[in-house]
């Protein structure tokens, strides 16, 4: 692999031979071992000089393995060359700490806080290791993701006070909102610091729906664990399940049939279409534009009906399966799908023409909730949120998976980063999705739907990645003995985009918050796990 050799050369140039024990697996994953002394230098080299991004960072309790230690993994994504560099660093078991990289990679701060909460491993140099996953009711010194912690043990309720950032000044007041909100949405607590109408600071307290998914998957059979991955976030069922399946297929070394690959693309795009139509409808509802809301809800209703008619489940559940697709759902349904796509495309284009001509709509969305490009890069904002701010990154293009490599589509590009741009990105992606679905149907060739996977080799790890409707979605799996899962790390796009949302609302007025929030359309369940 040419591109991999280039990366190795660059690392060698920056580091010398000292820390380079690497191996390349699954075509585009390069594993490197790194020690505490070099990790900051390496992160600096890759992220600052080479322009890669920290796609994910997590800890793993490997005390039961021969190495007998905790390890921190850094996943760097090289979007230009389509490669992942996964650096593994062992943690000193006496100190239980490691050097933080959050002073120059801002997005690392949130991963470091998460690792601190779940494993009790401290990032030295990160000043803000405030509890994130657990609220005041969780006792100190209990770290559920360590292997010594029993999955079903529920510690007694503690009562620590929850601290929020205080903004001082004349006339500054706080508005607490949630966790039970006015609309039919998930729980989260927002603390606004406001002077007059503009928001000075927003702090979001999430993890109200933290269910302990990563812990419960450990030791679970990989075929059963698949159903948990489908239930990480309801409206991203398919892309989460797809990322899980990809990782499992890589571990098992199985190539899935062509027909299944194309089927997966079609369903993934149907999910994106459904999700985006719902979002745009939601923004119109918050603006108070009833006509547009019902138009989009109607179109979303159509997609749901189509999906249900094709694959019997409205949320595309039980469609995927490790090794392929569960049944040949598309056979005999091609005509119905194409007819519906033409109908939706026509309706969508006509509706866009109407709403874009109304000042009611334009006034509210333009220059509202601007996310600057620099902030978007620093916080690793992904998906439509990133693309609207000028980060033109799409997993489907940079790391083509399934059949995306052979398909033609455009990635929408906008630069202003306001609500209008995010909506435009979503509208354009709807059209692209429709095109991709049509292309997929034309590309379908007969064949089997599923390669059987009966055995997972123990202690092998792999990455699964998809572009979910909300953005880059990364799952990392290490298999255990007897076909079970040793460690399952899920990083959904919502995890990256929540901090970006908090930045984007600054300086906007409180009544605009629902619109900005809806334009990001973040999943609470996908973030909280």
């Amino acid at each position, binding site marked *: 692999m040419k591109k991999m050799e280039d990366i190795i050369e660059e690392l060698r140039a920056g580091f010398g031979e000292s820390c380079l024990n690497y191996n390349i697996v699954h075509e585009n994953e390069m594993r490197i071992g790194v020690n505490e002394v070099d990790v900051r230098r390496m992160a600096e080299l890759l992220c600052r000089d080479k322009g890669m991004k920290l796609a994910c960072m997590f800890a793993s309790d490997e005390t039961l393995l021969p190495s007998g230690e905790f390890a921190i993994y850094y996943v760097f994504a090289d979007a230009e060359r389509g490669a992942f560099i996964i650096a593994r660093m062992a943690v000193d078991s006496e100190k239980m700490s490691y050097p933080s990289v959050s002073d120059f990679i801002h997005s690392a701060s949130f991963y470091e806080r998460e690792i601190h909460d779940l494993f009790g491993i401290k990032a030295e140099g990160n000043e803000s290791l405030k509890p994130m996953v657990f609220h005041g009711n969780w006792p100190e010194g209990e770290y559920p993701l360590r292997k010594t912690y029993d999955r079903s043990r529920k510690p007694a309720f503690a009562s620590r006070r929850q601290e929020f950032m205080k903004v001082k000044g004349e006339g500054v007041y706080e508005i607490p909102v949630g966790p039970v909100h006015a609309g039919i949405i998930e729980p989260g607590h927002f603390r606004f610091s406001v002077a007059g109408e503009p928001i000075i600071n927003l702090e979001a307290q999430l993890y109200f729906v933290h269910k302990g998914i990563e812990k419960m998957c450990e030791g679970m059979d990989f075929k059963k664990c698949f159903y948990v991955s489908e*239930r990480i976030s309801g409206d991203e069922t398919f892309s989460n399940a797809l990322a899980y399946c990809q990782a499992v297929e890589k571990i098992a070394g199985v190539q899935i049939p062509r027909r299944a690959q194309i089927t997966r693309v079609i369903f993934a795009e149907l999910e994106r279409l459904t999700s985006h139509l719902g979002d745009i409808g939601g923004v119109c509802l918050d603006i108070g534009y009833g006509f547009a809301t019902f138009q989009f809800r109607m179109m979303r209703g159509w997609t749901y009906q189509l999906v249900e008619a094709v694959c*019997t489940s409205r949320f595309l559940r039980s469609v995927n399966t490790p090794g392929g697709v569960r049944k040949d759902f598309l056979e005999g349904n091609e005509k119905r799908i194409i007819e519906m796509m033409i109908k939706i495309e026509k309706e969508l284009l006509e509706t866009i023409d109407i709403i874009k001509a109304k000042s009611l709509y334009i006034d509210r969305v333009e220059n509202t909730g601007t996310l600057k490009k620099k902030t978007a890069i620093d916080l690793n904002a992904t998906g439509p949120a990133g693309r609207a701010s000028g980060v033109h990154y799409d997993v489907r293009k940079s790391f083509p998976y399934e059949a995306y490599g052979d398909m033609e589509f455009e990635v929408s590009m906008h630069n202003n980063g306001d609500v209008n741009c995010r909506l435009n990105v979503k509208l354009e992606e709807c059209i692209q999705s429709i095109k991709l679905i049509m292309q997929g149907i034309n590309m379908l060739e007969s064949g089997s739907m599923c390669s059987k996977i009966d055995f997972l080799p123990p202690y092998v790890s792999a990455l699964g990645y998809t572009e979910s409707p909300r953005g880059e979605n990364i799952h990392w799996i290490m298999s255990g003995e007897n076909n079970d899962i040793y460690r399952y790390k899920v990083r959904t796009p919502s995890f990256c985009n929540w901090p970006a949302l908090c930045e984007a609302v600054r300086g906007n007025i409180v009544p605009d918050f629902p619109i900005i929030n809806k334009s990001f359309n973040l999943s609470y369940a996908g973030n909280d796990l």
Partner: protein
Amino acid sequence: MIKKIIQYPRLTQKYPKKPLDLPDFIGKPEIDNSKCTGCNECISACPSGCIVRDEKGVIGINLDECIFCARCEDVCASGAARMTSEFELAQKDRRLLRKTPLVIEERDIPDERYELIQREVKEKIKKIYGRSLQIRVVDAGSCNGCDYEINGLNNPFNDIERFGIRFVPSPRHADMLLVTGTATRNMELALIKTYNATPDPKLVVAVGACACSGGIFRDNYATRNGIDCIVPVDVYVPGCPPRPHAILYGILKALDRVGKK
């Protein structure tokens, strides 16, 4: 724009007055005991562990725990297990959904005795509710699938307002709580506070496998096994997620509008 508004005929479906005209979809799973060979393949394959044998050895499904994944149908060699498209599954008593006896986690329901006395009053009040109902939705730890389906009740196809039912922003305005999710550790207090903020008499409907029993997320460090360990529940709606019509059926069942003709 006006042309657009009148472009389509009425989209709202006539459910529940007329049965739905729907294609096949995954509804209630069934196991035919006469075909079952007793291989126990489905019991070991079920991700949420809802397939059981009772004390007589008869196989069955605890519907409150079922996540409707159709895996039992896939692994069953003799064709005994199959998914039907029955969706009107809501029950007032969780025991009616189960094959094996119910073991509820320790309960600490506030004012339980008071609840029992209240039940009679409630029966009468239903006549008043029968005309209009205000619902507050609480997500106590779902994956957001159930919430999207509840949202779906508002779309032009279901249009729940035709029954005089409305979703309201505050529990203080509500007659009914529609609760989704397992009740996570971090949401427990919020759920109790919301329950207490809802004026009496009130109804609670548990939507989805998680709210009924914990579903696939049972017995975890951060979850409870269903919301009935925390608040009293009037109607259980199984499903993962239940389709909008199943939720509607559950709501109407709580009001005794369905089932009595």
